[in-house]
Every structure is written in structure tokens, then in C-alpha cells.
């Protein structure tokens, strides 16, 4: 009954979305307030209805209702509660319901908190948002219905893939989706602006918080995914340039560019049509990501042909939205005229460089990810594009970008001189030189590129610090005055400093773990020891442990350093009888500056157990940096300028310094 109610709610949501798509748009064109007023309640109703459908599905998973085909395929009574919950989106159909749930949530938020938007813009934004909703609700109902019943109902389900039974991974998809789908807001704003033929400073100011609201969970989602890969896949890496990872990185890169170009559009009235284009691309790449992952085209073009209905449906949605948006852009963008002067050496000039490099980096990832498919589709040779390609194309684009990050915020709008900026960055420059010398001294044999990498990371971190220090006059000697200024500094400025500094911390982590990872691959008999990075690892014993729905082989490894016990580490290898799969659980001991990472393997037939251990320098910084970046986004989001809404010229002039 509840299941049917959910199904019905989803159908009704489609009907409401159709209404929300058509009526407010007509109202906005005719300037009819009554028709435009339909948008907000419809958006809220759509969210409530999809919420009911989602809750019904959740209920089916929680009660292990195996009469629902989806639950039977993806759940099991013995599964812990958290994975019954996560099981809802741990499959194609359920994840699409989550997708539209988040989509409608953003729509409802605009309806509820978008009171300061002009009526016409709000009606059009919600109408475009509903158009996306219609496409995906239709997709779910016609090709991926999660509510299909089984008769007779089986007694037990198939269980969830053990790989997905992991706390970080359980909540990785909701974050990623909140980011992907959140970019639909920027897209809807862009389309609405194109239809209106008007982009002004206030438009850019409205788009930024919505983009930021998508960027934050996307950052968290990517960091979570990378962290999960690090500790689960059992080979200690953190980023594999896997097409699925790339699918999330591309929208992130473009969204990051969009955040920065929207500042220029807001403050200087230039780059408007470019900002619109970025908003279109950011969401388009989210759709491409959805297509790549959902269609099966990634594994092979031929796999796509095996079950084409879903893939083709998403491809049609993709072509419709991207093609439609770009056509509209080509038609309407010339209407958006740029205003104002533009000097290369200025804040806006630096932000253009940021956009150029981020867009080229996104292009590199896009080309690298899709080129094998493209060649295969046109009958060319089969090739693989792996990490070496991205290291040779993506990384060279990031280095100049990172060099520019601390400089940009110190340049003035309109026209700036490098001398003043470089004086403010003197402190950061000194820090860079000290770090490079220190690294070279400590790792005299080590790769010299690593010293430069650490220098770059220092440049980012110290640059963020000295930028804030300069703004609050930290070195002027008057601490009380600095404190007062710090309190008055806009939240967006703090957010920017956090995000840029967090980037530096992540870069330090990436460089550190790549350059100085130490590895030990050995087979130990119980009682034997091996050395790694100054630690002695002794295999004390190997035993078995019963988990809720698995059996685990546990290695007990005593870790000592100079004779003193540091830790006892317990790497596991879990076997899931229901799913008939195995999964490793690495034991990780972190000091905050490095990780000791141990994985246990099979018995080698001579009484020895295979052990792989890594000493990963600075590895925790990668994700800490990502989280600090996301925190910066949240801080920036709380800036009062966004709550005020429409820009008030007098007030924005008073607000000390332009933010970010």
C-alpha cells in the first residue's frame, strides 16, 4: 500500500512539474502575476510529493519489503540499518529518485527563500527547474521505476554490494548529487536570464550563493569519494583518473570557474555572457557525468548497446538540455552587452586567467575521459587514457593557476600594479623559500620537483594568510584595531582565505604522499617482523571475527618504534556470504602528518601472510584540505550580502573591500 502511494506520489509530482513548467513561463511572458504565482506553491508541492515517494521507498528498504523488486535486488534482512538506508540510493532506480528529490529541494528553496528575486526571474527560474524535473521524473517512471512489485515475493533479498557497505560511501552519493543537481540552479538562472535578455549585477549576485550551495557538497562528495578509495580499494592511492572520478571532477572545475567569473560579472559588469556559458556548462557536465555513469557506456561502447533504453533516454535528455541551452545562448547572448573597461593587470584580469586555466583543465579531463569512446565510436583504434596523460596535461595547467591564486585577491579592480601586490606577498615569498630549502635539506636525495611542489603549497597557504593579515593590518602593530577589522571583514573574504588555504593544504598532501610514500610488500609468518619508515611491524597473530553480515580475517600487528609500542593495528579481510564477495579493510593509523596503512592478504601456502604496508607522508592533508575548502564555501555562504539580496550600491561601497 505504502509502495503504491509512493508510486502515485511520483506520478503526481510529474503532473505538478508539468504545471510548474508551463504556467509560470506563460505568466512571465505576459507579465501576469496570477500565473507567475503558481510557480512557488507548485515547486513546494513537487518537493513534498517526491519526498513522499522517497519516504515510501525508504520504508520498503527499512522493512525489507522483498515484494518490491528493487529491495529484493539490493537489500537483505541481515544488513545493518545504516546500509538499509544507504541501500535506497545504492542502485540505479533509487539513486535517480534521490536525484529528483534534491532537484525539487533546490526548487522549493528558491520558492521559499527567493522572495527577494524579481517575480519574473523567479517564475522563469522555477519553470526551467521544473522542465529538468519533468525530464527526469519521466525518465524514472518510464524506464527506471523503483516501485515495481514481485509476485510471489521472495523470502530474502540479494543484499547490497559489500563495497557499498561503508560509512563514508553510504553518504557519498547524497553529497555528490547535492552538488551535481545543485548546479541545475545556476543553469536555470542562466536560461531564465537568456530568456529575459538581461544580466545585471544583481543577477550575478543571486547566482553566486546557489552555485556555492552546490559547490560545497560537490567538494565534500569528491573528497569523501577520494578518501573512501584511499582506505578501501587497498592500494593506498587517492585519485585514479578513473572516468567515474573524472565525471565528478569536470563539473567541479567548471563550477569553481563559475564562482569566480560571477564575481567579475557582479562587480564589474563584464564577462556576463561567459558566466552564463559557464553556468550552462557546469550543469551540462553534471548531466554528462550522469549519462556516463548511468548508461554503462564507460565500460564499453558495446555495453551501452546491450541495454540501450536507459542510456538512450539519458542521452536524449542530455542532447535536449545542452543543445537547447547552447542554441538559446547563441541566439540571445549577443543581447548581453559588456560594460566597463578591462585592463589585463587587475583583479578581473587575474580572474579571467583563473577561468581560462580552469576551463582548459576541464577540457583536458573531458577530452581524456571521452577520447577512447570517441575513437571507438568512429571505428578507430582502441586506446586507453590513464593517469600519465592527465599528469602531462592537467597538472601543467594547475601549476600556473596555483601560482596566481594568492596574487589575484591582492590586485585592485580596474587597474592594479604588481609592485604593491608583490610587497604584500613578500612574507609568503619568504615562507616559500624557507620551505623549499628545508625540504631540500631533509630530503637531499628526494625528488627535487617535490621541493617545488611543497613550495607551491606553501605559497597557497601563506598567500591566504598574508592576504587576510594585510586586510586586517595585522603587522601594523595595533592588535586591537586588527581585531576590530577582523570582525568587520566580510565573511566572503574569510571564506576565500579558507578555500585558498585549504587548497594549499590539499596540494601539500598530494605532493607529500606522492613524493615520499614508502611501501613494504612482504609475507610474514606469525611472530615475524618487518621494517617500514622507522616502524617495526610484528605479526602477532591471525584470527577470525564475526561481523553482522560478514566474517573477517583479522591480522593483529604490533607496531613499535625504537622498541616502544606505538599501536596495535588490525587490518581485516571480510567475506560476505550473502553477496559472495570479499573486501579489504585497511588498518590506518594517522598522526595527522602521516598515515601508516596496512592491508592483510592471503596465506601464501608456506605459513606466511601477505602484508602490504605504506607510510603515506601528509596523506591526511589531502582530505583535510578539501574539507577546509568546503568550510570556506560555507563561511562565504553566510555573508550578509547574500541575505540582503538585491545589491544596494551605497551599502556595497561601504562593505570595506570587495570580497573574493
Amino acid at each position, binding site marked *: 500500500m505504502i509502495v503504491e502511494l509512493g508510486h502515485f506520489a511520483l506520478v503526481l509530482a510529474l503532473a505538478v512539474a508539468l504545471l510548474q513548467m508551463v504556467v509560470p513561463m506563460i505568466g512571465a511572458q505576459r507579465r501576469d502575476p496570477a500565473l507567475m504565482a503558481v510557480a512557488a506553491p507548485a515547486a513546494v508541492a513537487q518537493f513534498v510529493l517526491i519526498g513522499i515517494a522517497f519516504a515510501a521507498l525508504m520504508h520498503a528498504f527499512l522493512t525489507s519489503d522483498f515484494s518490491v523488486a528493487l529491495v529484493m535486488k539490493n537489500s537483505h534482512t541481515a544488513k545493518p540499518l545504516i546500509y538499509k538506508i544507504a541501500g535506497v540510493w545504492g542502485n540505479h532506480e533509487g539513486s535517480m529518485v534521490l536525484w529528483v528529490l534534491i532537484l525539487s529541494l533546490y526548487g522549493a528553496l528558491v520558492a521559499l527563500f527567493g522572495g527577494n528575486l524579481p517575480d519574473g526571474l523567479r517564475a522563469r527560474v522555477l519553470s526551467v527547474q521544473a522542465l529538468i524535473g519533468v525530464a527526469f521524473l519521466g525518465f524514472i517512471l518510464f524506464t527506471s521505476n523503483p516501485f515495481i512489485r514481485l509476485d510471489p515475493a521472495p523470502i530474502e533479498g540479494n543484499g547490497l554490494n559489500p563495497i557499498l557497505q561503508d560509512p563514508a560511501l553510504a553518504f557519498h552519493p547524497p553529497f555528490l548529487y547535492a552538488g551535481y543537481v545543485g548546479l541545475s540552479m545556476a543553469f536555470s538562472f542562466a536560461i531564465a536570464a537568456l530568456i529575459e535578455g538581461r544580466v545585471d549585477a544583481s543577477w550575478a549576485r543571486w547566482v553566486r550563493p546557489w552555485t556555492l550551495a552546490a559547490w560545497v557538497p560537490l567538494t565534500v562528495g569528491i573528497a569523501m569519494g577520494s578518501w573512501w578509495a584511499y582506505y578501501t580499494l587497498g592500494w593506498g592511492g587517492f585519485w585514479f583518473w578513473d572516468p567515474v572520478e573524472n565525471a565528478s571532477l569536470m563539473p567541479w572545475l567548471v563550477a569553481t570557474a563559475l564562482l569566480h567569473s560571477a564575481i567579475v560579472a557582479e562587480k564589474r559588469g563584464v564577462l556576463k555572457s561567459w558566466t552564463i556559458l559557464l553556468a550552462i556548462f557546469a550543469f551540462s557536465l553534471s548531466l554528462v557525468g550522469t549519462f556516463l555513469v548511468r548508461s554503462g557506456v564507460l565500460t564499453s561502447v558495446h555495453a551501452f548497446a546491450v541495454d540501450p533504453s536507459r542510456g538512450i533516454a539519458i542521452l536524449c535528455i542530455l542532447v535536449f538540455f545542452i543543445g537547447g541551452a547552447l542554441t538559446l545562448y547563441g541566439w540571445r547572448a549577443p543581447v548581453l552587452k559588456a560594460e566597463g573597461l578591462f585592463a589585463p593587470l587587475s583583479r578581473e*584580469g587575474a580572474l579571467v586567467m583563473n577561468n581560462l586555466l580552469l576551463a582548459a583543465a576541464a577540457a583536458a579531463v573531458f577530452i581524456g575521459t571521452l577520447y577512447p569512446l570517441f575513437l571507438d565510436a568512429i571505428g578507430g583504434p582502441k586506446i586507453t587514457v*590513464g593517469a600519465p596523460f592527465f599528469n602531462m596535461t592537467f597538472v601543467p595547467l594547475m601549476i600556473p593557476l596555483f601560482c596566481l591564486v594568492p596574487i589575484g585577491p591582492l590586485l585592485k579592480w580596474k587597474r592594479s600594479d604588481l609592485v604593491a601586490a608583490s610587497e604584500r606577498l613578500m612574507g609568503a615569498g619568504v615562507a616559500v623559500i624557507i620551505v623549499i630549502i628545508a625540504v631540500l635539506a631533509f630530503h637531499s636525495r628526494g625528488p627535487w620537483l617535490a621541493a617545488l611542489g611543497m613550495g607551491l603549497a606553501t605559497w597557497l597557504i601563506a598567500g591566504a594568510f598574508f592576504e587576510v593579515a594585510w586586510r586586517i593590518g595585522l603587522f601594523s602593530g595595533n592588535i586591537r584595531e586588527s581585531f576590530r577589522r577582523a570582525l568587520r571583514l566580510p565573511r566572503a573574504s574569510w571564506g576565500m582565505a579558507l578555500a585558498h588555504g585549504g587548497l594549499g593544504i590539499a596540494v601539500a598532501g598530494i605532493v607529500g604522499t606522492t613524493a615520499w610514500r614508502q611501501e613494504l610488500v612482504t609475507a610474514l609468518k606469525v611472530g615475524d617482523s618487518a621494517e617500514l619508515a622507522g616502524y617495526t611491524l610484528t605479526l602477532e597473530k591471525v584470527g577470525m571475527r564475526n561481523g553482522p553480515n560478514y566474517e573477517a580475517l583479522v591480522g593483529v600487528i604490533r607496531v613499535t618504534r625504537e622498541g616502544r609500542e606505538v599501536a596495535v593495528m588490525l587490518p581485516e579481510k571480510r567475506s560476505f556470504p550473502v553477496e559472495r564477495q570479499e573486501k579489504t579493510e585497511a588498518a590506518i593509523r594517522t598522526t595527522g602528518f602521516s598515515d601508516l596503512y596496512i592491508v592483510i592478504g592471503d596465506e601464501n601456502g608456506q605459513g606466511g601472510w601477505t602484508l602490504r604496508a605504506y607510510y603515506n607522508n601528509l596523506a591526511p592533508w589531502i582530505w583535510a584540505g578539501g574539507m577546509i575548502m568546503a568550510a570556506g564555501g560555507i563561511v562565504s555562504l553566510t555573508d550578509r550580502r547574500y541575505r540582503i539580496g538585491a545589491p544596494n550600491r551605497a551599502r556595497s561601497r561601504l562593505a570595506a573591500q570587495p570580497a573574493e
Partner: protein
Amino acid sequence: MRVLVISLLMLVFAGAAYAVDPGEQLKDPVLEGRAREISKELRCLVCQNQSIDDSNADLAKDLRRIVRERIVAGDTDQQVLDYIVARYGDFVLLKPPFEPATWLLWFGPFLALLVGAGIAWSVIRRGREGVAPALNAEEKARLEKLLDRSE
């Protein structure tokens, strides 16, 4: 989303052993180091974008063994790669070869950068020549109103 694909991949090589078993390693650390470096350039054919150094699939294991055999037999790094490409095709290389079919791939990112730089340059040049924008009638009226109000 990546989750699902990775989980599919894991299905392919269900069972979790690890890359490079201790038994596979060469005694000579220099040769072993070379083998590891070469392994990072080779794709495990049944996995997705994973190098044979990272993968635990049987095929990756076989390839790792072949790499080490060739090294012990005295091949140079390039000869080892050529040997494996001759058997498995370019598909096995994680770094695609530079040939007409991949020109677009290798030049693409930098082409994108150049095109972008060209557009940026034209924007900047136009901006330099540009003059302060004229207000349209509506904006003028608004400005007047604002000025009136502030007085």
C-alpha cells in the same frame, strides 16, 4: 555514481588479493624498481583504468610476471613495453601513443587553452578600447530618481 561503476569493477575481480605479491618480486631492487615503473604504464585489461601495478586481477598478475621475465632477460624498458604492446595492442598502454589518431587527444587541452586565451585577449582588447557605457533611457530615469531621493 562512481560507486556503482567501481562496484561493478569489483565484481569483475571478486575476491580481494593485492597487487604485487611478495612472491612475484625480483631479488635485485634496481630491476624490481624498473618493473614497478613499467607496471604503472600498463593497463590491466579487464579492469578500468587501473594499472597492473594496482590491480589484483589474474591477468594483471600474468602481465607483471611477463614484465619481470623480460627485464631479467635483459630487455630495456622500451623493449618490455613494445613486447607487451605487440601482444595486447595499444589498448594496454595507459599513456596512449602519439600518432595521427591521438593528435587531437594530446593537443586538445592545449588547443582549448589557446582558443580560450585568444578569446580572453580579444575581450581585454575590446575592453581597453571600450568607453564608459551609455545609459539607456530607463536607467537614466532611475538614476535621476535615485539622485532626487538622496538629496
